[in-house]
């Protein structure tokens, strides 16, 4: 371990957790969010910790190390296509070479493109400290814009992504231009059927509220239904979202972004024959 006058460079995760528990530090992964402000800070540099840069498949569960940068994940065969599609649209090669998925999560922006996919796919996060670890569903991690339940002594150490049923997806990111565009609205939908009945619906909206939005209670309306039954329920289903989605004001008008959300949701159903 290297203790700097201002900052720490741990060599192992155990060292990192110990430093984290004993000092006021800011975890530093790729720096692509932190360095926008570049305030003098006592950083805990995580970027050389190989323990946080692994991708491991365990049956239907993919464990993604939060320290993996986008370039690593885009090149990894086990990373599902839907996640790759979101990551390839993030920034430019230079930013993707350093920006990490863990930083995207912990920065807690509602525009975080990888977080949107993790929401829809029911991912869980492992938070570790020297006292122990806890595993939380990604929705419970965020409490607001830039706010999470991460404690001062904890680090995000694993992202658990259930791989089943991610092949049939609908994803759309609306940005101002092709390269380097931050999401104005981003949407992902997953719909799986089993024996002719809908076994999973997930619809998540990014960049419109303080956190990613997902409404499990509305999704439940379609569960167990045939596509024909779902089609009959479609107006009622869309009406729920029409009522619930209230985009907060941004650079682009709330009305515009709401309309885009509704169009994408309807198109997602359409593309699944509903």
């Amino acid at each position, binding site marked *: 371990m290297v203790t700097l006058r201002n900052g720490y460079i741990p060599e192992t995760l155990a060292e990192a957790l110990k430093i984290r528990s004993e000092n006021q530090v800011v975890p530093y992964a790729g720096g692509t969010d932190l360095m926008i402000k570049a305030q003098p800070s006592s950083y805990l540099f995580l970027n050389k910790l190989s323990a946080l840069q692994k991708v491991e498949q365990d049956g239907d569960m993919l464990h993604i190390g939060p320290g993996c940068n986008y370039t690593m994940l885009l090149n990894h065969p086990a990373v599902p296509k839907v996640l790759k599609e979101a990551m390839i649209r993030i920034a430019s090669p230079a930013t993707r070479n*350093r920006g990490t998925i863990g930083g995207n999560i912990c920065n807690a922006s509602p525009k975080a493109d990888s977080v949107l996919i993790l929401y829809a796919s029911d991912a869980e996060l492992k938070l570790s400290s020297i006292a122990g670890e806890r595993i939380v569903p990604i929705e419970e991690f965020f409490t607001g814009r830039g706010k999470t339940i991460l404690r001062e002594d904890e680090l995000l150490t694993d992202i658990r992504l259930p791989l089943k049923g991610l092949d049939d997806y609908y994803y759309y990111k609306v940005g101002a231009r092709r*390269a380097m565009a931050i999401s104005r609205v981003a949407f992902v939908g997953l719909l799986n059927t089993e024996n002719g009945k809908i076994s999973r619906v997930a619809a998540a909206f990014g960049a419109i509220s303080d956190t990613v939005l997902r409404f499990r209670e509305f999704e439940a309306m379609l569960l167990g239904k045939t596509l024909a039954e779902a089609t009959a329920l479609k107006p009622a289903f869309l009406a729920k979202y029409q009522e619930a989605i209230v985009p907060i004001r941004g650079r682009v008008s709330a009305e515009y972004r709401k309309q885009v959300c509704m169009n994408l949701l309807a198109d997602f159903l359409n593309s699944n024959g509903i």
Partner: protein
Amino acid sequence: MTDTIRFRLNGEETESHSDPSARLLDVLREEFLLTGVKCGCKEGECGACSVIIDGQLANSCMVALGSVSGSDVMTIEGYSKTKRYQKLSEAYAEFSAVQCGFCIPGMVMASEALLSHNPHPTEEEIREGISGNLCRCTGYSAIVSAIKKASENGEGLW
């Protein structure tokens, strides 16, 4: 406790005594006087500050000095001593791909990063490779042609 960060800079072992949370961009320009590394935005948007860290393109404005401890950092100053640079330089000249020149050090580093991972890029791959590098003068087409030409003329170098 130490105030020394060690890394390789343009092939030489070196150390810095700047604050570990300082931008690598500022350290390169102010402590090492490597002013080929340009500053256009300090927000990761323009690519003028591009360097190559451990073989990967990076915007040095978005990198804290402490994170390159033990790494290999290459700037345009080091790269310009290589044969690959010669090929890129000739091709950029051939297509008049340089106007004011401000974006060019970053563009060249992005070109190198692209070709070192993909020696025969398509036009689309070239455009993607330099998509984080803004140029307000050339309209990009001459730069794209220059990179294509360098990849052909430099056959075997990358």
